[in-house]
């Protein structure tokens, strides 16, 4: 068993918007759901909380929002213990815990009016967030008639209504089609960039996290296996298997085999070989092009994925 912990980023305490110190949780004495989970979510980051189903992501999320009462005082939000800040802390937090919580018998607008009332916000904000999530045209329809993606976006709009400093999103792309996933992803990146909102997002899809997050935490079986920036994540993956699509592959195979003994021909125009890591890809590509190869595509096959699988399968 091994735990990979990247070097702690050089940031001071106050710049972490969420910190947990050895967070534990158990429903019963036999079953420990969270075991010594210490999270550090820097301000301004998009923090991906990654883990397979049942790893403890939702439990963490519910503890962070106070929906589950904490068993010890180990959560700090905005630099102060969470316990004393409930429920006022939600003035600065927007959250989406588990599948979208919205009232299906109400229209999109009424759902937002409900939140506006609860948070004492002017109703003028409603149109703004509706256009932000692209639901302006469907605002008057009942939420019951929405597609899953629309429901997800409405739920995010509800979380965004108060312009929070922190967004807590539990599996926001779960069950969405690729288009829906992309929309949400773009929206989150935009919010992070334009409004400076710190986003804590959980997912079981590595690719999703990889594409939008600045920081990553990986959890499995209730234990935190990795925490660090997305770059540090890349360094952890070890050798990197790539597939190169190029003209006249058969001719290039022997040449490449000199430096890369693992190289094999996959098809007419494709070669597969192993590099020491992701970082080696740019240099490899440059050298290949410089030596006259006509390269169509270089694609990472499974290095990170395999590493991730190995990581989460630890007991």
């Amino acid at each position, binding site marked *: 068993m091994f735990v990979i912990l990247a070097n702690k980023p050089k940031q001071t305490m106050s710049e972490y918007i969420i910190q947990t110190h050895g967070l534990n949780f158990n429903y019963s004495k036999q079953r420990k759901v969270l075991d010594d989970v210490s999270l550090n979510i820097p301000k301004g980051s998009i923090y991906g909380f990654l883990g397979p189903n049942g790893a403890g992501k939702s439990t963490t999320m*519910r503890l962070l*929002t*106070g*929906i*589950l*009462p904490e068993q010890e005082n180990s959560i700090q939000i905005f630099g102060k213990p969470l316990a004393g800040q409930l*429920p*006022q*802390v*939600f*003035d600065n*937090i927007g*959250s989406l*815990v*588990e*599948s*979208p*919580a*919205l*009232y*299906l*018998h*109400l229209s999109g607008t*009424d759902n937002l*009016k*409900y*939140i506006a*009332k*609860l*948070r*004492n916000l002017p109703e003028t904000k409603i149109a703004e967030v509706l256009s932000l999530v692209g639901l302006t045209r469907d605002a008057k329809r009942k939420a019951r008639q929405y597609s899953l993606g629309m429901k997800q976006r409405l739920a995010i709009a*509800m979380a965004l209504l108060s312009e929070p400093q922190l967004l807590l999103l539990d599996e926001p792309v779960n069950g969405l089609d690729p288009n829906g996933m992309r929309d949400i992803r773009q929206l989150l990146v935009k919010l992070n960039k334009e409004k400076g909102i710190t986003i804590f997002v959980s997912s079981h899809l590595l690719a999703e996290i990889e594409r939008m997050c600045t920081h990553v935490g990986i959890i499995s079986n209730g234990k935190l296996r990795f925490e660090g920036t997305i770059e540090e994540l890349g360094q952890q993956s070890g050798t990197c298997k790539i597939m190169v699509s190029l003209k006249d592959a058969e001719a290039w195979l022997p040449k490449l085999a000199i430096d890369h003994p693992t190289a094999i021909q996959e098809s007419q125009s494709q070669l597969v070989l192993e590099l020491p890591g992701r970082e080696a890809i740019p240099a490899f590509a440059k050298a290949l092009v410089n030596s006259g190869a006509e390269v169509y595509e270089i694609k990472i096959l499974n290095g990170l994925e395999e590493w991730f699988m190995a990581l989460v399968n630890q007991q």
Partner: protein
Amino acid sequence: MQNFTTALAAEHIKKRGTGIYLWSVILGAVSPLIWIAVMFAQEGENKDAGIPYNYYIKFIESCLDPFAGFFFPLLIIITVSRITQLDHKNGGWQLMETQPIKKTSIYFSKFLVVLFSNLIAIGTLVGLSYLGGYIATFFLEVPKSATFEFAYAELFWLVARLFLASLFFTAFQYILSVLLPSFIWSILIGFFLLLAFIFLKAFNVTPDWYPLELLSKMASYPKGSQLGYWVTYSETASFLLTIFTLYIGFEWYKHKSIKQAFAGNAKRFGALAGVTVIVIGLLVYTLWPNTTKPHNRTVVTGTINGEHVPQNIYLMNTFLNNDTLAVIPVKDNAFKYVFDKKLPLIKYVLVFNEMLNAPILVSANDSVDVEVNFYKKGQDVKVRGTRLPEEEFNSKENFSGSAVSYYIQENIFMDNPEFITKRLVSDWKSAMSESTSFKTIDNYVPKKDFLDKSKIMGTIEYLNLWNTFVKKRALMYPGEKTVETEDIKEMKKSVPLDDEGLLANQAYFDYVKSQLIALDKRDLDENSKTLAAIAKLKPGSFKDKMLFYQLNNSLKDASTTADRTTLLADYSNGFTDKKYYNNTIANNKTIESLGKGMPAPLFSATGIDGKQYNLADFKGKYVIIDVWATWCGPCRQQSPYFDKLADKYQKENIKFMAISVDKNIADWAMEAKAKTKKVLQLHINNDELFGKQYNAGTIPRFILIDPNGNFVNAQLPQPEDKIFEKVLRETLGLAEEK
């Protein structure tokens, strides 16, 4: 607080389009609508008792039973389930908890919405009652004694009490529905409570704190406390139970598990213990039955209001006919009488005039308060004081007919004495437990002396049933024995055979009589056997009463003066107390004077036109008299039959007359004018003398006198009864009708 109103406003956004308040209106409207339909269906059947009442309040009270017993609980179950399901179904609980809203605000704003729904239902009931009642006045005849003012205070307390009574059921359903995410459980439990209530009621074992009992009590006692409290003990209990329920429910909700909520740390546990001790303590105090405190003297007081306040009222012994214990003067509409002796618990009668009397229960150190109101066309008597629970218990007629009495009456299962005996004993046992469960709306229970007595009386009912059964079996199966089981022996043992106080009850007398003559196998009638047995009793007041009762009965039943003389000669010297002897002699005189062939005392009366009449004027004709008064309900019921006969026999040599004993001549004149001319309408000149001479204690009274001015019958049956006409035809010498 701002947090709370915010949450409440948000709840109202959330329930948009659910029609939750609309359902409150619909279910609140059902009962008044049903009642309006009933009013139209029963058109004209409403009898005016002559006692003033508020028309609208009575309308609302008529709607209470179906409302509080069914539609209101139904609404509560539905509303609570729907309002909590809005959040259970849509993940709303978690959504709310991730907003800057306190859990108290979340929990109680939602509860308040349910309370609003309750108030809307009650408001609809009241509003529609006023509207429906108002509309009905255009189509239906309204009793003259109804009043129409807007009774603010009464209405306020009615609504407040209904609301309070519903609180506990609402809170109970609410905490269930919040804790259990599936809608089915809270609905199932709600309906189970509704159903179980029917069974609990049937077996008379409903505890006072049962959520639906609180509502049902409110509906059964719409006027509330008899002792002038704002709310009844039952509503106070509802309030306390609500506090406790909401406390448990909210802590449970807040900490997500009962263990966390109360055993989580010492502070929470301490709070639980504190709240439990205080609320449960108060609850026990509220629900613990009270008995009235003894007064330092034994006293009867009262007030008499309205028209014709008598100058004196009379305190009479129910057992001895016309035995006046005291004449109590009425001064400034009030009277007071202090008993100077230690008394056993006995029923007396207060006589206000010839037609109005009130039975009262008095024992040592009782203070009985009587309020009499005379209205134009009616009167009511309220008896309060230290025997209020007993008075109410008596008026409830708790010993209802049992199955076994039906079997014995109809000769069913007579061949199976084991079965009948077993049923009889088990019915007796349940009747005994029933008699101890009675309490008033102010949680007062009858005192032990009374309960002991009523238990004995209840036992006697079953013993008399047993005796009937044994007699019937002896006739139907002469060879077989009917075994007296240990239980029957125990029943018999519990009834003393020499309790003077119980003799006021006919059933007790009958039972003692049956025991006295049980072994007398001589071939004699029961009266003779009884008199012989009584004569052998130990001299004393018990024997006096037994003898008085039986001797007077025998005198009444005797057909000739010679028989009566023999009876008096044989037994009248058996009395120890001279009073009973004198009373017996006086009664005999009255019986003799009203006997067939005795001269009817002359009286004079006034006709509608002011003309004077005397009974003597009608010599040579049969005279048949209907004694009545305008305020007497049963009289009004009988006179149409009397009038019909007057029409049928107008050609015969008989004068039909109706003699009114009304105090108010104007009342009589107005009604008498509208009556048939075939009956001579008269108003008695001296009602007191007439009442005395004709022994007219109760009306209506029908008297038949022959052409010589002698009685044919001084007490005819009611004209409604076929025998009335039969006697009439026989007297007039007409053949029997086919």
